């Protein structure tokens, strides 16, 4: 299955498998995931808590070793690179963490926190470091003179996220993984940070993998969206198409669950009670079948492969909605 989006995608994930082992049991966090991300594209990745989004992000960055599969960045397989070669590649790929406040060292000053990737990358000239730090802090809307000497606890959640974004940009990366960058923020700050990410993307020519569990947030910034459930991809499609005509029953469920700010739209009561099954013993066949209204015998015996259901749209379902 190829999921081709461009003749030379910047990031290509092939059959990635990531597992954790806990007390002798295996957690199937990411199972056989393949993805491509074109240069300059934003790919959104959605799914419920625990479905493996962060694990996928960390495995792409080689912060977590994959059991099998390839991660091709600009044609180089990161899973086989070592030492200096891996370090060189890693400079070009950065991560923005889920919890902005927890991801900043409380005892270090903002200037040093943002400069840290430069130090690790071996930029020795302090003037050069200072110049880069000032540039990215200004870019994210913070005054370098006012903030550089202060500590993280003096900032709000939204400001901490701006600092994290500045830190991720200081090495001039090409590819940034944003792991739920706005989940911990309230409505108004969320809008500010989403706009900022879009500005930064345009200004620095970035390619983004944008992880979130809120579909409306993902739609606001993504060209295409990938939907994940219990370690597997369910559907990949251009954003507009995914919302207009979801093919996978799980995608349809997610769309229905979004609260609509209109009192005339009564919330649907069709969302199944029941929670995702355990990733230790995922259901046979289609992993979504225990909550799927369309499930039948075939769904229990045969794993559905991602296949084309419409131009540019892929779904892993035996009975897709389109």
């Amino acid at each position, binding site marked *: 299955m190829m999921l081709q989006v461009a003749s030379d995608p910047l990031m290509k994930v092939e059959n990635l498998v990531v597992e954790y082992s806990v007390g002798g049991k295996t957690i199937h966090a990411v199972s056989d995931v393949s993805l491509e991300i074109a240069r300059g594209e934003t790919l959104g990745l959605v799914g419920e808590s625990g479905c493996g989004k962060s694990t996928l992000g960390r495995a792409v960055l080689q912060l977590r070793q994959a059991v099998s599969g390839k991660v091709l960045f600009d044609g180089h397989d990161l899973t086989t690179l070592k030492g200096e070669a891996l370090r060189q590649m890693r400079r070009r790929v950065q991560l923005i963490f889920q919890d902005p406040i927890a991801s900043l060292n409380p005892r270090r000053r903002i200037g040093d926190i943002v400069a840290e990737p430069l130090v690790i990358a071996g930029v020795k000239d302090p003037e050069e470091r200072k110049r880069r730090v000032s540039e990215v802090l200004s870019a994210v809307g913070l005054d370098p003179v006012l903030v550089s000497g202060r500590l993280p606890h003096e900032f709000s959640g939204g400001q901490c996220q701006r600092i994290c974004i500045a830190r991720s940009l200081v090495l001039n990366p090409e590819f940034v993984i944003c792991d739920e960058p706005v989940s911990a923020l309230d409505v108004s700050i969320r*809008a500010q940070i*989403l706009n900022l990410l879009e500005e930064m993307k345009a200004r620095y020519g970035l390619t983004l993998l944008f992880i979130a569990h*809120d579909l409306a947030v993902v739609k606001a910034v993504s*060209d295409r969206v990938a939907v994940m459930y219990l370690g597997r991809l369910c559907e990949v499609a251009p954003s507009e198409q995914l919302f207009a005509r979801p093919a996978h029953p799980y995608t349809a469920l997610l769309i229905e669950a979004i609260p609509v*700010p209109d009192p005339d*739209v*009564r919330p649907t009561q069709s*969302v199944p009670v029941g*929670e995702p099954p355990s990733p230790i013993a995922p259901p046979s066949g289609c992993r979504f079948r225990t909550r799927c209204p369309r499930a039948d015998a075939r769904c229990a015996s045969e794993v559905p492969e991602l296949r084309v259901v419409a131009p540019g749209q892929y779904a892993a379902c035996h009975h897709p909605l389109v």
Partner: protein
Amino acid sequence: MSGALLSVENVMVDLPTPRGNLRAVDHVDLAVGAGRTLGIVGESGCGKTMLSRAILQLLPKKAKLSGRVMFDGQDLTGLSAEKLRKLRGRSLAVVFQDPMTSLNPVLTIGTQLIETIQEHLELDLAQARQRSIELLAAVGIPAPEQRLAQYPHQLSGGMRQRVAIAVALSCEPQLLIADEPTTALDVTIQAQILDLLAREQQRRHMAMIIITHDLGVVAGRTDEVAVMYAGRVVERAPTPALFKRMRMPYTEALLAALPKLDVAPHTPLPAISGRPPDPTRPLKGCSFSPRCRYSAGRCTTEKPQLSPAETQEHVYACFHPIAAGAGA
């Protein structure tokens, strides 16, 4: 407001801080009747939690509360600690954003439910146990009997919130306050929890207050909405009236800042710039004026008071309200 189960009358909460006095809640009036749901909406730090703690008489020790909190005919601000404790488990219940705030990590789910029930209701152990199982089933927990022996950390976030709701409902409260009950949860789980609260609220004819920063959450699930900003209620209306014709620029801005599904990707969001004012440095004029696109004239020198729109039920505090036909 007579006849309401709960009425909050001119409530103010002041907190001493190293930076000076912080007025977290400022001249708030609200009421909720039995069987009704009130939504309280506003950005982080605008005083929602402090207001709910003022209602429950669970404020930090150094806080100073003034005004009255009338519940079922008595003023809670004058009650003894003992009376309040009884009332809180029995008639007044609360569900917090983080379920671990209401659950005890070292006790099993069963112990917590059974103890709460036995403390407030005249039931023996077997009856309390049976009732706990029924409650867990009612909040959608599979295999409820087995769950009694489990500890909170052995459950997922969504399950824990269900258990917290079961504990809150265990003594058939008259009023349930849910403070951002779903902010920490995924959308599908959020929808389930909100459905669950709505169902139990109707079945028990409870009064309910849902606190959230997301106008989308209150739209289909409340009878009335109060919008808070910088400690004050700045607009209050029956939910349909509010969404049909919001008058307060802040309410409009909160709604606009939500990402919408019918908007094309990469459309910049109309964000509200800046942050709410520092609550230890209150502004002379309208608290929203530094961020308001309609600010003009007296907005920076005078505080707008709540005044009625078309009906007495819809009130707003603004010198230049959004004209009829505009807004949402």
